[in-house]
């Protein structure tokens, strides 16, 4: 149980590389926080600072009300699961799981109880005497989880723990980690570059890019109300489509226009853009926010030429040409299209995103965390 606070934290590596810039972040007690971002954005660096494995260059890092900038890892009551699992090759699974407790001089019977409990929960009891080298990736992953679990730490840190697993295993482990969080009642900080992982697991997500926080919010916030084009593009598959165009104010409402295309912006957007007729904007349409089963009206019609049809089992990805641009949408699989055909798509207007083409900031959701 711990609340973690970053106060204007910076991290510069010895070679001068500025990996984390002015990080302000409060991780609430018992929260499941996910650090999400592309490779090299400073997620692991941030996590390592929490663990005490990397020094804070400046700023303050607090656990509850205690400044822990210079506390070594073993004084922090954190447990960590690594991407490579980092199991001790010369120790048995039992010794691996119990090692942290042994280092804390817990008595043998209690260690034994905890190790066996964890092993039972993770269904690895039959492996307790094996060496890590003889285990499969999924089994090693469980051992690594067990090693962190038995510690019953105040903070549970995970650095891309699932990225070495195959797809099916990854999904089932997600569920287990979620369950683990529910039963352990402790603060989890989880690093990933996989948006689906972040969206399924997180109470809150922190999106990072080049060491700078882009947005902090619930999965819903992040997905539905992205503060900038980076966040909007990073989540969603296929990624959000962008169209540059102009705002046109008509009879109390606003339209987005580009060539023949004219989309009526919903009231909450129109309100924000009131009196900005003629302004250049970037419109964002999420791949799933079109429908071609419903009749498109004059307000929400997107007419395009089909370029490719990519079935993905449950749905299909529809690649279309629109005004020399390629857009990708996700539509039901029951509708058959052939490349070259013209298709009428009904855009879900209430879910449109509008960004400033220069700053890439959202023009709808600009309050809050998009510093």
């Amino acid at each position, binding site marked *: 149980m711990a609340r973690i606070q970053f106060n204007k934290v910076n991290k510069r590596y010895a070679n001068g590389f500025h990996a984390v810039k002015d990080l302000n972040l409060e991780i609430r007690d018992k929260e499941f926080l996910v650090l999400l971002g592309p490779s090299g954005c400073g997620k692991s660096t941030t996590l390592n600072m929490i663990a005490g*494995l990397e020094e804070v260059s400046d700023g303050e890092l607090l656990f509850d009300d205690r400044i822990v900038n210079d506390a070594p*890892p073993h004084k922090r009551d954190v*447990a960590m699961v*690594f991407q*490579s699992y980092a199991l*001790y*090759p010369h120790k048995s699974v039992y010794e691996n799981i119990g090692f942290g407790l042994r*280092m804390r001089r817990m008595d043998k019977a209690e260690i034994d109880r905890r190790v066996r409990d964890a092993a039972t929960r993770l269904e690895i009891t039959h492996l307790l005497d094996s060496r890590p*080298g003889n285990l499969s990736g999924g089994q090693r992953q469980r051992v690594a989880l067990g090693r962190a679990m038995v510690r019953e730490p105040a903070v549970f840190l995970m650095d891309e723990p699932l990225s070495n697993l195959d797809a099916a295993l990854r999904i089932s482990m997600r569920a287990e980690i979620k369950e683990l969080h529910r039963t352990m009642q402790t603060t989890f900080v989880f690093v990933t570059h996989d948006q689906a992982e972040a969206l399924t697991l997180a109470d809150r997500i922190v999106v990072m890019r080049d060491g700078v926080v882009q947005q902090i919010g619930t999965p819903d916030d992040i997905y539905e109300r992205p503060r900038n084009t980076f966040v909007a593009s990073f989540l969603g598959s296929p990624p959000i489509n962008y169209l540059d165009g102009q705002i046109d104010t008509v009879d109390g409402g606003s339209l987005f226009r580009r060539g023949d295309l004219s989309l009526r912006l919903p009231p909450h957007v129109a309100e924000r853009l009131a009196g900005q007729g003629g302004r250049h904007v970037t419109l964002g349409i999420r791949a799933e926010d079109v429908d071609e089963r419903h009749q498109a009206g004059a307000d929400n019609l997107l007419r395009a030429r089909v370029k490719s049809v990519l079935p993905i089992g449950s749905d299909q990805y529809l690649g279309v040409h629109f005004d020399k641009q390629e857009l990708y949408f996700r539509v039901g699989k029951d509708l058959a299209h052939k490349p070259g055909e013209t298709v009428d798509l009904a855009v879900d207007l209430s879910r449109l995103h509008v960004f400033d083409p220069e700053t890439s900031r959202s023009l709808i959701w600009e309050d809050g965390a998009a510093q």
Partner: protein
Amino acid sequence: MDTAIQVSEQSRRDAEGYRRARLRALWVRRMVIFVSAVVLSIYVLAPVVWLVSSSVQTEAEITSVPPHWIPEEPTLQNYRAIFSATEEEEITYENRSGVDPVSGGFIPSTAKSLLPAMGNSFIVACAVVVLNLLVGVPAAYAIAKIRFMARNASVYFILTTRVIPDIALVVPFFLMIKNLGLLDTLSSLIITYLAVTVPFTVFILVQYFEGLPDELDKAARVDGCSRFQALIHVYLPLSLPSLVAVVLFTFLTSWNEFLLALMFTQTEASQTLPILLAAFTSDFTISFSFINAAGVLAIVPPVIVAIVFERYIVSGLTAGAVKG
């Protein structure tokens, strides 16, 4: 259908041909390996066999042509002289011709110094091994896993001390040892041998530690280890093979060292085995078989050390193979 069978018979013949060629290649390879192994073994072992065999021959037999690989009248007189030298009467220039009248060979009075010299060599070698590990292991861990200022500079510095030949350092070393008042003591040897061996130890271990993943170190520290405990509980058990290499290397270097020992030792109090053996060979009146017996004793401790640690080399390697 018919043509298909034709083709497959043809290809079966081909397959048979390939199989034969493969087996032939396999057989040739085995023979080459076997013959090379035999030749190499003879090359390495023949001198040792001759050393052992001649050490139990009389002076007459040792000089016979052709040489006897298997002694015809084996004798333990040389070993007896070494192990019971103290009780025997002093052999002097005057009475030495009385010894072993058959050969005229002569067992020197310093024979009784042989065991003490071996003791000296052993003490020095063991001390050097232990101190090397105590100094080298933490140094290598720090260099490999902790980022500190001038880290690379210190590695280069340590290594450059090793490109200077020992002979160039003999005089400075001598002056230092003399001024420290350590001439003719075992400490003088231990100190100078450390200067020679520690850089190698650090170099070997840094290489090895750098090969072990950083995440192991991080995992250990998050699990509650201090840096030092991470070293003891995680890195040391994993680096057994390289530790064994270090032990063997430093032990053998100290055991065989001649030049520095020649400079710093003067009496039985500190003389090591190589010094004593060299003294034997420079006196041409001394029995060859006696010198060979001394030589046999000189190789016994290193062989024992190698045999003891060979087991750890093997177990160390399997531990490495399990690495995830």
